[in-house]
């Protein structure tokens, strides 16, 4: 009897030790990843509250001696020229991203619904053609799109950006939403049709509410993509008052190369809207990926 219980307890402790080994490995790894991820962002914040002089010291001030919000004040002050530019870039980015988001939801929802529900000839071909868009870099399309935009008179307008941004948000949006619609039983719609709803009513009242997480995820993805886009904005826009944030900041700081606190403050403020948006809605995003793209 005693030997049996001894073996059992020895086996258990051995297993616990092995499990603990994995768990400790995981913890150490997570601490490493946390440092890798967070330290650059912390350094950005610390630099942004230094004066220009304090930032350019060696060895650096690990913690600013005299923290100051000067850089933020300068960027957000509509009275001086820097602040005017920054606020205008911010506003431009907001308009372009919002327009892109609304349009891509309007275009992606019916397309995804059709790809999920209907079996028309060429459906698979069209579906994969849409997905293939994700494969190609912006640079391939840059020259011809520039010519195209010049031809239809959209160069130096925000319309050129919205039209282009639509296409790179669409493939993932359609793919995600199709997965959602695939998981919504057709019988629900059929029941609504039998009760006298039109196809459109059935769609609006039954399918749309059930696919809300997918639509939210799609919208976030489009917004973040448009907010952060750089190459097209860099190429299509040349007038200073139209620039979006990424290009605007780059233009501005290629002239003021040593103003690192200002640059870090601008980077921080440019990141705030998308980070907040994503953190608020990230559970929809992960859920949409799980239900829409991964689950089978």
């Amino acid at each position: 009897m005693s030997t049996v219980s001894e073996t059992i307890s020895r086996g258990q402790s051995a297993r616990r030790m092995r499990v603990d080994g994995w768990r400790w490995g995981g913890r150490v790894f997570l601490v490493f990843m946390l440092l890798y991820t967070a330290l650059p962002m912390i350094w950005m914040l610390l630099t942004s509250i230094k004066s220009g002089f304090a930032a350019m010291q060696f060895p650096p001030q690990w913690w600013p001696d005299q923290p100051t919000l000067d850089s933020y004040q300068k960027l957000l002050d509509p009275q001086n020229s820097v602040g005017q530019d920054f606020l205008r870039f911010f506003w431009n980015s907001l308009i372009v991203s919002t327009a892109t988001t609304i349009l891509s939801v309007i275009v992606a929802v019916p397309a995804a619904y059709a790809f999920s529900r209907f079996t028309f000839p060429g459906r698979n071909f069209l579906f994969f053609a849409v997905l293939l868009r994700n494969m190609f870099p912006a640079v391939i399309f840059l020259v011809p799109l520039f010519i195209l935009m010049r031809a239809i008179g959209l160069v130096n307008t925000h319309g050129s950006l919205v039209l282009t941004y639509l296409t790179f948000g669409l493939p993932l949006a359609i793919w995600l939403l199709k997965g959602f619609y695939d998981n919504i039983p057709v019988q629900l719609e059929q029941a609504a049709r039998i009760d006298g709803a039109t196809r459109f009513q059935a769609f609006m009242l039954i399918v749309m509410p059930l696919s809300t997480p997918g639509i939210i995820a799609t919208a976030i993805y489009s917004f973040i993509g448009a907010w952060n886009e750089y190459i097209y904005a860099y190429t299509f826009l040349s007038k200073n008052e139209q620039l979006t944030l990424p290009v605007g900041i780059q233009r501005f700081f290629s002239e003021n190369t040593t103003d690192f606190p200002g640059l870090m403050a601008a980077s921080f403020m440019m990141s705030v809207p998308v980070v907040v948006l994503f953190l608020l809605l990230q559970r929809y995003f992960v859920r949409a990926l799980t239900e829409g793209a991964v689950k089978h």
Partner: protein
Amino acid sequence: MTIVSGKADARRRLQSARSDVLRKMWEHRADYAYVLPAIAVMLIVIAYPIYYTIELSFFNTPPGLQLRDKIFVGFNNYTAILTSGVFWQVTFNTLIWTVASTFFSFVLGFAAALALHRDFVGRGVLRAILIIPWVISAVAASYIWKWIYHSDFGIIGAILVELGWAERPPNFIDSVSTVLPSLIVVNIWREFPFAMIMMTAGLQTVPEQLLRAAKVDGANAWQRFWHVTFPHLRNVSTVTILLLAVANFNSFIIPWIMTGGGPSNASHIWITHIYELAFGRQRWGVASAYSVLLFIILMTLGYFYVRALSGNERKDGSA
């Protein structure tokens, strides 16, 4: 169905098949209305540019992009590319950049997803922090890291000096030998959260019962991972790796903002090189020929991407 049929019979069947497709298309004409907006946008912004790129690659177009004055040069642009030394250097850089970024992003992201799979206090906060680099703009990320790598006032250099590992702060991005690895570290910083999100979503689909059954049968943690979890994630992993590979192959912003391809082309990858050829030196023909080559490579990758995705589809149908 192996019976050899007459010519007339075959023709009739072909005809009826064709009219069948047309009839079906007609019957489903309303369905196309749903996809029409998406397809229209795609055609304008994709099909037309691809056609144009191919055409331009066979011409020499003047720097101002006056299309009427272009001169047909046949395959000259292509031979010019393949015989230049820069081409091979840039290709080598692209290969290292893509493979290293994809590999480490995937491994780190997958490991983070696994480590965060078990619930513990603060898991949600930790996961959210790890995702942030993926959300912020690549332009902001490039400036943050440029400042971190700064050769005089960078924090990494300062730490190395403080610890006594270096006499003076090293030049991370101004030196030919360290520039590419330094940029890859930035790229991984931005890309691993994507792998983490995908794999987190994938992990939630692994059936708990299977894992518990394996545990009862005496499988240890590694065996459970290797024989139960991992096979379940094969498809997600394939799609994730392919998407990462394509994204990395196509990256532009980080090398462009941080170094502009320098010093002496050491951090030029295909896309930055094409951009510089087109918009910097205005050699539209050569840049277009590069794009066509790139296009061919991506189509090959795209073939595997579609195969991986339709693998999912087929499984979906049978389930």
